[in-house]
């Protein structure tokens, strides 16, 4: 009997025979799990977490009860570490039913390549948090003024803005001791010129904050020096919520289907993740978590609601109304985020149900609303968001691209990690493929074992573009069997496929192929983006844009020629295509460093007009046309020499 097993965070799934161990299944499916001791139930490296419950999106009910029983030996190994629920060893646990297995970071061999590097930003420093060193006059019987008022008075003398300050409850509790132990020489941390949030003994120069970008798939934190604006440490990780579903919709539905606990579980999971980033980044920089006095956050609307513990159900269905648009300021303590307890958590504002604070972050970073030229901004993540316009007007929309462009929902798709094919070329004459694998500088030669495990997002776009260029794909996306190549074939279920890497080149004991369904998934995704672009242009009554800004960590890895060749966006001069990196994260950093920018963000967020694509009368038609390669009718004169002549003119 066969059972379904799904591994997270990779999202890979497969059918295995009853009695297969989790580790065997992982190998078969191409998921890396550490197994240092050679499956002797000794090292304990292969710990995995078994998810319990119903997962609508994955269509699976996973349970600890679907596994072989825990025996004494395994129990002993597991007991060496702190007891955590639902943990098993992959090497000796047999599969007896459907299971969803989460492989924790520590148990993964190939570490994820999360590249959300901080970009260059220009900002006039005006952080919300400032530190003031003050020497106070010691009180005596002639001057018995209270400690807080004493601090306030001195601060006011130095800075007339500091009027009517308040003090955080916890800071107040510590105040009398700190003042006396430090001989009345203290550094006072003030938030927004309004509230004292910390009083430290002596002179403290460093003033740090943390900007965080919570993506659906990955989370990046930028530990930032608020005095200089420099990033001290960048810390990133997979979004731990991935184990509840790969995309936003599946997480929203998890909250809906698990009414009592779902939202809380997801909220706790992301807060735990944020705390990990806080701990690791401060540790690396030689600070304590308490030294972070403020945090700014960007994320999409669903992540936003879940983080704040707000039911995301209503923003998940039409008319997609968010709980609020405005930015939110909440004390860390109330969240359970382990920075300075009185520290502020600033969450950037939201544009619409499917255009969230992350998109506002992009606007803050790229500032299309301050430019004269028409910018088309594409933020490609698990969802695609578009913004079009200039200083006069901005409109935005969300395209349901799904995670296919990132390599999910693709038979051999995987995230960017060692072993992932990242670049592909196909010879249009021989139809032979050559590719590059992450972690290896050489291109494949068809002989050497490249230890390839799958295809990541950038290579999916490459391979589709190359297949189309080599006419392996017809304009309508159909795999063309007219060629005489053993790479083009049908699998045992009759599904057409193209062999990208032969079994002897892979680490998974199987050929890596791109099949017809994969092509269809990409067609849907890129059709959504392209038709979104067209409708936006039409909405503004323009034919062309002056610059195309591609944002998103994944976007930076895409080859722009390949992306245009498959028709992800309309034809334009390739010189106008600009990668702006992880603009959402850059926006979070800018907001961290400037209260003026925060104010501006709230204004833009409400100024951008949201367009609901699906409500456009002709959306289905435009979407359908845009699904073809590169487009059913549109021509691409800028790809002369790259595309077939009939697509150019």
């Amino acid at each position, binding site marked *: 009997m066969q059972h379904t097993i799904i591994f997270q965070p990779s999202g890979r799934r497969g059918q295995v025979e009853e009695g297969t161990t989790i580790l065997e299944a992982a190998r078969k499916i191409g998921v890396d799990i550490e197994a240092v001791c050679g499956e002797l139930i000794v090292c304990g490296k292969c710990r995995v977490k078994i998810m319990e419950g119903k997962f609508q*999106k994955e*269509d699976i009910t996973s349970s600890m009860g679907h596994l072989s029983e825990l025996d004494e030996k395994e129990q002993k190994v597991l007991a060496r570490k702190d007891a955590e629920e639902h943990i098993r060893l992959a090497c000796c646990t047999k599969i007896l039913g459907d299971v969803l297995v989460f492989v924790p970071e520590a148990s993964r061999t190939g570490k994820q390549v999360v590249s959300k590097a901080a970009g260059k930003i220009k900002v006039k420093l005006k952080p919300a948090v400032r530190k003031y060193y003050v020497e106070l006059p010691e009180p005596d019987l002639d001057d018995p003024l209270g400690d807080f008022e004493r601090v306030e008075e001195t601060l006011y003398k130095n800075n007339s803005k500091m009027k009517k300050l308040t003090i955080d409850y916890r800071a107040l509790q510590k105040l009398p001791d700190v003042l006396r132990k430090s001989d009345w020489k203290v550094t006072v941390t003030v938030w927004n010129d309004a509230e004292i949030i910390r009083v430290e003994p002596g002179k403290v120069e460093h003033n740090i904050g943390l900007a965080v970008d919570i993506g659906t798939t990955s989370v990046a934190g930028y530990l930032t020096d608020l005095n200089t604006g420099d990033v001290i440490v960048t810390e990133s990780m997979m979004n731990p919520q991935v184990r509840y579903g790969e995309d936003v919709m599946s997480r929203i*539905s998890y909250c809906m289907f698990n009414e009592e606990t779902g939202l809380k579980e997801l909220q706790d999971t992301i807060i735990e993740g944020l705390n990990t980033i806080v701990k690791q980044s401060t540790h690396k920089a030689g600070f304590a978590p308490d030294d972070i006095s403020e945090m700014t956050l960007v994320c999409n609307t669903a992540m936003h609601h879940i983080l704040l513990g707000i039911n995301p159900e209503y923003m998940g*269905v039409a008319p997609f109304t968010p709980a609020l648009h405005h930015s939110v300021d909440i004390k860390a303590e109330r969240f359970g985020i382990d920075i300075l307890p009185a520290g502020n958590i600033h969450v950037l504002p939201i544009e619409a149900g499917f255009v969230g604070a992350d998109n506002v972050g992009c606007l803050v970073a790229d500032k299309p609303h301050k430019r004269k030229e028409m910018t088309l901004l594409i933020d490609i993540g698990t969802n695609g968001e578009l913004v079009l316009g200039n200083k006069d007007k901005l409109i935005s929309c969300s395209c349901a691209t799904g995670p296919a462009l990132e390599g999910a929902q693709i038979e051999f798709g995987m995230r960017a990690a060692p072993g992932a094919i990242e670049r592909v070329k196909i010879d249009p004459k021989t139809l032979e493929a050559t590719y590059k694998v992450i972690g290896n500088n050489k291109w494949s030669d068809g002989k050497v074992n490249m230890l390839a495990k799958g295809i990541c997002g950038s290579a999916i776009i490459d391979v589709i573009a190359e297949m189309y260029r080599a006419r392996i794909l017809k304009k309508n996306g159909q795999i063309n069997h007219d060629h005489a190549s053993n790479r083009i074939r049908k699998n045992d279920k009759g599904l057409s496929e193209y062999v990208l890497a032969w079994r002897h080149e892979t680490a998974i004991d199987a050929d890596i192929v791109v099949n017809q369904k994969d092509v269809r998934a990409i*067609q849907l995704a890129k059709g959504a983006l392209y038709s979104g672009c067209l409708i936006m242009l039409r909405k503004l009554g323009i034919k062309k844009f002056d610059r195309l800004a591609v944002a998103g960590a994944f976007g930076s890895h895409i080859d722009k020629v390949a992306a245009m060749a498959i028709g992800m966006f309309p034809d334009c001069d390739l010189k106008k295509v600009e990668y702006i990196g992880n603009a959402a994260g850059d926006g979070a950093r800018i907001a961290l460093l400037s209260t003026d920018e925060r104010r501006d963000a709230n204004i833009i967020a409400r100024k951008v007009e949201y367009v609901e694509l699906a409500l456009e009368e002709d959306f289905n038609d435009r*979407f359908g046309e845009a699904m073809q390669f590169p487009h059913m009718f549109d021509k691409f004169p800028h790809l002369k020499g790259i595309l077939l002549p009939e697509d150019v003119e």
Partner: protein
Amino acid sequence: MTNEREQELIKRLQEAVINYKPADAKKAAEEAIAEGADAYKMTMEGLAGGMEVVSEKFDTHEYFVPETLLCAKALYAALDLLKPFIKVQEGTVRGQVVLGVMQGDVHDLGKNIIKAIFEASGWTVHDLGRDVPLKKFVEEQMKTDSDIVMLSAMMTTSMVGIKKLIPMIKEKNPKVKIMIGGAPITDKTVSEYGADVTADNAPNALKEAMKMLDALRKGKM
């Protein structure tokens, strides 16, 4: 009209649908009407016949969503002309369905393809559109006494409504059959929500609907 001429028009309608040529479809339909051809036969053998080939092409991955949409367009170009001339024929009447996209969902591409295929095959389709309030489905079914209610959902979040809706429909009319479809829906959803069937594409939906209708009609006898 000669048999030969009739066959020629049927063939032209078929080809117009298969090769998504709305102008050709329109022209063939106009000629058929002008020459007094049997509109029902033209629809069934010409348009529906063409759509059958389209379905096959979809199954074998030759066609995908864009082509199917275009075929449906060509089909409507002719069907809109032919429809008024179709005489209700005893014994050949197909079923009636209520069709719509769930509340909270505005994705109606799949629903529109379904509608085209069903209408071409002679079914009466009561299309409620998208983002349809639950009550509306119940009311429409009661009003039209339709055999099947077909519910479409593209998002997991809007799919949830189906679970509430099915008991509401069945309470009023236990005999009515429910077909559900859309990206997040699987066989498991069908059993959990108490629906009767799902289909992963429009041609299969039609096949399933025929089966259910047969069962319903036999049940009545």
